[in-house]
């Protein structure tokens, strides 16, 4: 059979129907200008916010802002920085240990129905409003324990808030290890625990780490779980069972004071600026870790 190429088309078939072409070009123009515009609308508030905070924070932002305590109506953020990192450290320690272990169990050991429900429950926990969690922390760790406002109560409540983010990424990280790797490890005589620690763990680690850093970035910027649990203190945290201040609390507490120089309101903006820098920094770390992950497993079949 011989192929008949273009036999039915006469002269002029390089031009086609003009009306159809006009319509296609119109669609193309909308896409070309409309889509970037949508992206601009998405990103504009971010840059506007960074600018808006920077111009209010930077004129009075000095090294002393980071190193001195709050004094009278002004002073520095030192106590809040120490408080925020203490709370974040406690929360991350708790959330990472529990979240990674639970993720490991869900991905490797849990019977399929258990794993299914655990994943649903994990997502549910991630969706609980932070303020509800904060109130729960207040009831369980401040009132019920008779501790009062403490750094420990704040750290644990913040940890509970962060757990589902770490749990989800850890579960996914282990579940995404190619099943061939598991089979090959077992066929070498590895027990499931040895497979997890020697083969799955190094493969999953970068993804788990980026989950932990992401949870830290989210936790660092969280206010609600701490308001009713950590209390407040104008001096650096003195112990786990003492109250503490924290950076987001500075914004919450000081924002509506009068805007005079060296005032509480300036502290609020400085805290906001510092938080922004820290959160962006953590996100950069997440990207770097993710990139390393891609490099490490390049050439491995999914």
């Amino acid at each position, binding site marked *: 059979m011989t192929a008949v190429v273009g036999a039915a088309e006469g002269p002029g078939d390089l031009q086609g129907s003009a009306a159809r072409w006009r319509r296609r070009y119109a669609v193309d123009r909308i896409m070309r200008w409309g889509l970037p515009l949508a992206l601009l609308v998405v990103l504009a508030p971010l840059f506007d916010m960074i600018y808006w905070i920077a111009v209010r924070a930077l004129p009075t932002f000095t090294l002393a802002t980071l190193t001195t305590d709050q004094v009278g109506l002004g002073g520095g953020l030192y106590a809040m920085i120490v408080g925020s990192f203490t709370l974040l450290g406690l929360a991350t320690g708790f959330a990472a240990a529990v979240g990674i272990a639970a993720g490991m169990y869900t991905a490797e050991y849990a019977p399929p129905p258990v794993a299914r429900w655990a994943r649903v429950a994990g997502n549910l926990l991630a969706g609980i409003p932070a303020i509800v969690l904060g109130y729960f922390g207040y009831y369980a760790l401040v009132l019920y324990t008779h501790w009062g406002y403490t750094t420990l109560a704040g750290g644990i409540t913040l940890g509970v808030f962060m757990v589902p983010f770490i749990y989800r990424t850890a579960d996914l990280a282990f579940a995404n290890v*190619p099943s061939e790797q598991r089979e090959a490890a077992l066929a*070498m005589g590895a027990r499931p625990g040895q497979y997890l620690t*020697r083969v799955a763990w190094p493969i999953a680690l970068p993804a788990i780490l980026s989950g932990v850093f992401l949870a830290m970035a989210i936790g660092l910027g969280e206010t609600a779980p701490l308001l009713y649990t950590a209390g407040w203190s104008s001096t650096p945290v003195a112990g786990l069972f003492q109250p503490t201040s924290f950076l987001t609390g500075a914004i919450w507490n000081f924002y509506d004071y009068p805007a005079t120089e060296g005032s509480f309101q300036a502290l609020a903006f400085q805290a906001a600026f510092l938080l922004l820098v820290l959160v962006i920094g953590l996100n950069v770390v997440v990207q770097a870790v993710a990139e390393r992950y891609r490099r*490490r497993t390049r050439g491995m079949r999914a």
Partner: protein
Amino acid sequence: MTEPERGGPRGSDPILSVRHLTVRAPNRTILDDVSLDFEDREVAAIIGPSGCGKTTLVRALNRMAEVAPGIRIEGSVRYRGEEIYDPAVNPVLVRQRIGMVFQRPVPFPMSIYENVAFGLRLQGIDEEELDRTVRRSLEQAGLWKELDGDVERSGLTLSGGQQQRLCIARALAVKPRILLMDEPAASLDPTATQRIEELIFDLRKEYAVILVTHNMQQAARVAERTAFFYQGRLIEYSDTHQLFENPREKLTESYVTGRFG
């Protein structure tokens, strides 16, 4: 089928002896009452069309079949007279004696050295012994010279054929007696395939090799004995030459002459 069909004279006791092996998945029977023997220091090929149970057979021989959920196994598999499905037997030890190489190379995401050392480290072997065994295993797998001493780079940087030989070295390092190979060359190009076949040919001097393949030429090239499976049943098991040139069963004949499969 009561007794395995014997394809020629045999010397010593079989290294692996399969009797009435039946493997069931939740809704079908994958292997149906299979009995056959494998001899030490021989290559046996398992051939048959897709879905005939070849892969399940080799997975049942080192207790890997049970790793998949819902699999039920009946019958007996004896390794040098010892029942591997005895409840007192540790499947981990079975898998160390009876090594496995998969269809696609699966290097662990670690250095070449650590890949080969993996099984030994599980057993807690000392460092000096480790160095020697890693080197010897890489030599046996024909990879040592090509690496030029660079065993610290990632196993994932090797070519597909090299990765597969790395996996063979890794399996050899724990000193198995039997090597199960599930279409080890299926994902490789002809040159790499040839190297694997030459390697299998050499391995017979020290090991029993059970090779699953859908490539009949490959079976003819490397195997002393060949078993033909069809729909979960062992149809014929005999000397490779006889099976290909003068099969006893009609079904075998139609398969080896390419009439189906």
